[in-house]
C-alpha cells in the first residue's frame, strides 16, 4: 500500500538526498494538493484523477487508458510495479520482456471496446478473480533421475567390473601373441581357461546341437562355447585400442570406430583377430565407444566453442552501448562520443569474427544429406540471425554537434540549478544564523550544512572502498598516472586525481561499466570538494573543478 503524505512532507529518497531539487513528477505524489488539504489518501491512487484503483495492474491499465498522454508517468509506474512484483522472485530478462510484451499487448488490445478498469464496482474489490497475478512461475515438474540412477548404477557397476576383467584378459592375450595359428591357439588357451566342451550340448545363443557339421568354438576372452555361426571377431586393432585407451598411432586419432567384422571368417580374419562371443564383444565395444566419445573433439565443436566464447564476450557490451547512447542523448558527461564509437567498432569487429567463424563451420566438409551437414547449416543460420538481430540492429552513432548542443543545454541547466541551490543554501544559512543568535548559541549538530557534509563524506568513504575494490581488480599497476607528480595539500584533490586516472585507464580498456561508476564517484568527490571550498572560502569562491575532464 502506498501512503500519500501531505504535500509538504518529505516525499521520496531522491528528494531527501538533494533537498533543493525539484520534487520528481512521477510516483504517487499528489502534487496538486494545497497546504490546507492535509487529508492522507491511501491505496493505489491515480496521480492524475486521484481515484483508487486497488491493484498495481489496474492502476497501470487505468493510466494507459485514461491518461495515455502521460507517458513518463506510465513508464515510472511500470518500473515501480515491476520492481515490486519481482521482489523475492528470480526473474530472467526474458520473463521481464515477456511481461512488458503482455502489457504492451494489453494496451494494444484495448481497442476492443470496454475500458478494463470501468468495472470497479464496490463488490469487485473482494473478488479474487480481479486480484493481480504475480509473474507466472514455471510449472510443476517431477524428478525421476534419482530412481533412474538407483536402478542403473548397480547394473553399470556390475558391467564395469566384468568389462575390466575382460580387458585384463585381453591384455594378457595380446601380450606376445604368436602369429602362427596353432601356437596362437595354445597361447590363447594358456591365458584363458576354456570351458569343457563336453558339458555343452547346444550352442547357448542359437540353441542348435553340436555335431560333426556344427563344431564347437570357444570365446577367447571368457572361454565359453558357441557355434561357428554365433562367433564374432574382435580385431587386434580394436583390441589394442581397448587395452590402451590413449592411442599413439595416428589412425586412432580419427576417432571413428572401424567397421565390425560381421562377415564369415576367412583365414585372414582368423589370424588378425580373436574369436569372441556376442556378450563379450558387446561389453568391450561399449567400453571402447565410451572412451572414444570422451576423446572425440571434431573441428566443429572447437569452432562452436570459439563462437560461444565470442558471443559471451560481446553480449554485455550490446546493452552497454545502448546505455552509453541514452546517456549521451540525456546530455550527461559520463561518457564521450568517442566511447560510443569505440564500443560500436568493437561490436562490429566481433560481428565480423562471428561471421568468419560461422563461415568456417559452413566450410567443413560433411557428407551431403547427413545430420552433420544439417547441423553446420543450422549453426551458420543461428549465427547470421544473431548478428543481424542483436549486433547490426544497434542504433547508429549520434551526430557530434547534436550531442554537444544537448550537453551545452544540460550544462546551462546545471549551472542555473547550482546557482539557485547556492542562493537557497545561503538563505537557509543566514536564517539559521539569525535563529542561533536569537536562541543564543547552539550545538554544531544542528547545523544543516554540517549534516550535509557528513552525509557526503560518508559517501566519499564509500567511494574509497569501491576504489580499493577496483584496485584489487586488475589495473592497479600504474594507478596514479601524471597526477601523481602533483602533490597537493588537499587529500580530496588527490583522490579526485586518482579517480580520473582510473577513469582514463578504464576507458582505454573499454570497461564502460566501471567508467560509469567511477564518473559517479568523481562527481560526488567534486561536489564534496566544492562544498568544502564554499564553507572554507565563503560563498563567493567559484567552483575550482569542473565535473569531467
Amino acid at each position, binding site marked *: 500500500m502506498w501512503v500519500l503524505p501531505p504535500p509538504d512532507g518529505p516525499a521520496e529518497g531522491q528528494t531527501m538526498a538533494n533537498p533543493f531539487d525539484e520534487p520528481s513528477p512521477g510516483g504517487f505524489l499528489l502534487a496538486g494538493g494545497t497546504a490546507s488539504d492535509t487529508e492522507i489518501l491511501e491505496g493505489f491512487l491515480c496521480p492524475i484523477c486521484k481515484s483508487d484503483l486497488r491493484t498495481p495492474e489496474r492502476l497501470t491499465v487505468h493510466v494507459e487508458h485514461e491518461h495515455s498522454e502521460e507517458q513518463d508517468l506510465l513508464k515510472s509506474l511500470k518500473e515501480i510495479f515491476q520492481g515490486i512484483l519481482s521482489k523475492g522472485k528470480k526473474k530472467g530478462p526474458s520473463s521481464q520482456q515477456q511481461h512488458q510484451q503482455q502489457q504492451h499487448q494489453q494496451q494494444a488490445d484495448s481497442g476492443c471496446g470496454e475500458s478494463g478498469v470501468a468495472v470497479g464496482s464496490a463488490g469487485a474489490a473482494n473478488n*479474487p478473480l480481479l486480484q493481480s497475478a504475480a509473474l507466472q512461475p514455471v510449472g510443476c515438474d*517431477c524428478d525421476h533421475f534419482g*530412481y*533412474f540412477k538407483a536402478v542403473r548404477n548397480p547394473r553399470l557397476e556390475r558391467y564395469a567390473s566384468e568389462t575390466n576383467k575382460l580387458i585384463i584378459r585381453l591384455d594378457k592375450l595380446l601380450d606376445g601373441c604368436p602369429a602362427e595359428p596353432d601356437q596362437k591357439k595354445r597361447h590363447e588357451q594358456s591365458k584363458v581357461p576354456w570351458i569343457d566342451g563336453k558339458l555343452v550340448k547346444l550352442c547357448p545363443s542359437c540353441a542348435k546341437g553340436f555335431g560333426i557339421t556344427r563344431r564347437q568354438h570357444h570365446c577367447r576372452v571368457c572361454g565359453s562355447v558357441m557355434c561357428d555361426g554365433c562367433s564374432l571377431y574382435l580385431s587386434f586393432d580394436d583390441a589394442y585400442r581397448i587395452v590402451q585407451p590413449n592411442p599413439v598411432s595416428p589412425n586412432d586419432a580419427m576417432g571413428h570406430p572401424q567397421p565390425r567384422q560381421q562377415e564369415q571368417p576367412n583365414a585372414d580374419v582368423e589370424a588378425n583377430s580373436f574369436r569372441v562371443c556376442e556378450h563379450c564383444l558387446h561389453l568391450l565395444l*561399449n567400453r571402447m565407444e565410451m572412451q572414444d566419445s570422451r576423446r572425440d573433439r571434431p573441428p566443429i565443436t572447437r569452432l562452436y566453442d570459439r563462437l560461444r566464447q565470442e558471443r559471451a564476450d560481446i553480449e554485455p557490451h550490446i546493452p552497454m552501448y545502448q546505455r552509453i547512447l541514452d546517456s549521451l542523448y540525456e546530455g550527461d558527461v559520463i561518457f564521450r562520443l568517442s566511447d560510443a564509437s569505440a564500443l560500436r567498432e568493437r561490436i562490429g569487429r566481433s560481428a565480423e569474427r562471428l561471421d568468419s567463424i560461422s563461415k568456417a563451420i559452413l566450410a567443413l566438409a560433411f557428407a551431403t544429406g547427413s545430420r552433420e551437414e544439417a547441423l553446420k547449416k543450422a549453426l551458420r543460420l543461428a549465427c547470421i540471425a544473431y548478428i543481424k538481430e542483436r549486433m547490426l540492429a544497434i542504433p547508429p552513432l549520434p551526430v557530434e554537434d547534436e550531442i554537444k548542443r544537448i550537453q551545452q543545454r544540460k550544462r546551462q541547466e546545471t549551472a542555473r540549478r547550482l546557482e539557485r541551490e547556492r542562493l537557497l543554501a545561503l538563505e537557509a544559512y543566514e536564517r539559521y544564523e539569525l535563529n542561533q543568535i536569537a536562541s543564543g548559541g547552539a550545538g554544531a549538530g544542528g547545523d544543516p550544512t554540517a549534516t550535509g557534509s557528513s552525509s557526503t563524506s560518508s559517501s566519499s568513504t564509500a567511494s574509497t572502498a569501491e576504489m580499493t575494490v577496483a584496485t584489487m581488480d586488475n589495473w592497479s599497476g600504474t594507478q596514479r598516472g601524471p597526477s601523481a607528480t602533483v602533490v597537493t595539500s588537499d587529500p580530496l584533490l588527490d583522490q579526485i586525481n586518482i579517480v580520473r586516472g582510473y577513469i582514463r585507464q578504464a576507458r582505454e580498456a573499454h570497461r564502460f561499466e566501471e567508467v560509469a561508476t567511477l564518473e559517479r564517484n568523481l562527481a560526488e568527490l567534486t561536489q564534496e570538494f566544492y562544498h568544502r571550498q564554499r564553507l572554507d572560502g565563503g560563498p563567493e569562491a567559484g567552483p575550482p573543478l569542473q565535473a569531467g575532464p
Partner: protein
Amino acid sequence: MNVIRAIQLYIDKMIADAGPGMKMLMMDRETISVVSMAFAQSEMLQKDVFLFERLDSARSNERLKYLKCIVFIRPTRDNVLRLQRELRSPKYGSYYIYFSNIIPRTDIKALAESDESESVQDVKEVYADYLPVNPNLFSLHIPTCLQALNWNPEALERATQGLISVLLSFKIRPAIRFRSGSTAAQTLAKKVHETINKETALFSFRPPEDGAAPPLLLILDRRDDPITPLLNQWTYQAMVHELLTISKQRVDLSGVSGVPKDLKEVVLSTEQDEFYANNLYANFGEIATTIKVLMDEFQKKAHDQRKIESIADMKNFVETYPQFRKMSGTVTKHLVLISELSVQVGRQQLFEVSELEQEIACRADHSTQLQRVKRLVSEGKLSLANALRLVLLYAMRYERHANCDTSGLLKLLQDRGGRAHIAPRMLEYISTVARQELFNTVKITDAVKLTRNLIKELKGVENVYAQHECVLKGTLEEIVKGRPLDAQYPIMGNEVPFRRPPAEVIVFIVGGATYEEALAVHRYNQEGYRIVLGGTTIHNSESFIEEVLAATAGVPFKHSRSLQQFHQAPAGTA
C-alpha cells in the same frame, strides 16, 4: 495464466538444464506440435538447439557424440520402447529425458536398465502436454472425441492427461465442476478427480489462504451449445479459421490463387507476429483499416529504400534491415489473408447469410425466417455448406414449432445435392439441456435471466452480425459474479462448495471449443479476471459437422423420426 508462456517456460527450463553446448531436440508426433506452437525454429536456434528429430520416424544411424540430446516425448508405451532401443546404442553424447506427463515407474526402470553406456543425465516429468493456441486458449487436438454420444476411450484418456498437465503447469489443485446432465463432462470430471487424488504428491500445493475459494476447473459439453460453431464469425482469427482453417497455427494457402510462393503456408502465432497478436479479436472491418496503416508505414519505408543514395543511407537501411524484413513479411502475409477473406465473403454472400444466421439464433420469427431460408437455399447462389448451416440452425431452432418445415428445406437441399442427412444427426447430437434452454422454448422461471433477456431486447442491436452470444459467456458471467452454481454445475467429490468466486478458472469443453468462445474469455481477462479456455479441439463449422457425424454414428434416431426419409446418407458418403 498464459498457456503459451507456461509451455515456453517448460521448454526454456529443459534447455537450461542441459547446460551449454550444441543441443538437439528429439520429439514425437505430438510434442513437436507443442514445441512449434511455443517457439519458432529460429528462436530455438538462438537457444543453441540446432537439430530436431522425431523419435517415432525413421532416422539415420549417424553418431554425433558431441551433441547433447534433449528428449521431449509423451509417456506412451511405444515411445518408451523406442527410447530404450535408442539408449542401448546411443547416437548422442548425453541424453536429457523429459516426459510430457505422468509416467509409470516401471517404464523408468525399463529405461534405466537400457542405459548401459551411462549416457542419460536427467529424467523428469514436465507437464507440457497440450497445444497452446492463444495465451488464453489451449487445444488437445482430438478431432472427434465421442462415439455413440459417449467417450471414445482413447480420447477420454488423452483428455484426462491433457487436463492434468494443464493443472500441473499452473500448479493448481482445483475444485472440479461439470455441466449437469452431460455424461461426457461428468465422466471426464470423475477421471480428473481420481487422478488428482491418486497423485497426491504432485498435487500437494499450498492451499489458498484462508477463505479464498480454490481455482475452478469447469467441464462443459459442446452438445449444450451446438449453435456457436455453426455461425459465421467476423473477428479475424475466427474468420481465418472458418474460411481457411487454422491447423496448429498454420494456414494452408496453396489452394488460393495468386499467392506468392513463399506464402503457400503461413504461420499465425501471437508470439512471433505482433500484428496478429494485436488484431486477433478485431473485426473484419477494423482490420482492413489497420492493415491500411501498416501498408502506409511499409510504403514509407519502401520509399526510403529507393532513396538510398549515399553509403550512409545504405548503412542506415541495413541497420534497420531485420525490422524491415519482419515488417514486410507481416504486411504481405496479412494482406494476402485479408484479401482472400474478402473474396470469400463476397463469393459466399456471407453478409446476407450471417445476418440470417444471427436472426435465427437470436430471434423467434418463424414465418419470415422460413421464407428467407427457403429463398436462399433454393436460389442456388449459396454454397451448399452455407445452405446446410442455415437449414441446421432452422431445424434446431424450430424443432418443436407447429409449422416446422425442416423436411421441406431438406428436400430443397437434397435436390441441390446437399448433405441433408446431417440434419437428423444434428438433432440427435444436441443435448436435452440445449433443447430446452438454448432458444428459451420453455418458459423462463429464473428471474435474473428473464430480466437480462428483457434488457437485451430493450438495448437493441449494435451489430447485426454479432448479436449471438455463446452459452459460455453467460456461464462465465455467473462464475465471476459468484452466483450459486451447484444446480447446473455440480461439484465433483465431497468438497464443500465455495460461495465466493474462484481466483482462477479453467474451462474445458468436451467436443471442442471455438474462437468465438476464446473471444468471450479474452473480454473477461481484459477486465482482470484469470480464465483459460480449452477444448478437445478448436472447431470451425466444417470440423464441427464432422465431429457431430462421428459422435452420432450408430445412434438410434429418437428426436428426428419425422425426418426418416433423410436418415440415410446418399450412397458413397459417410
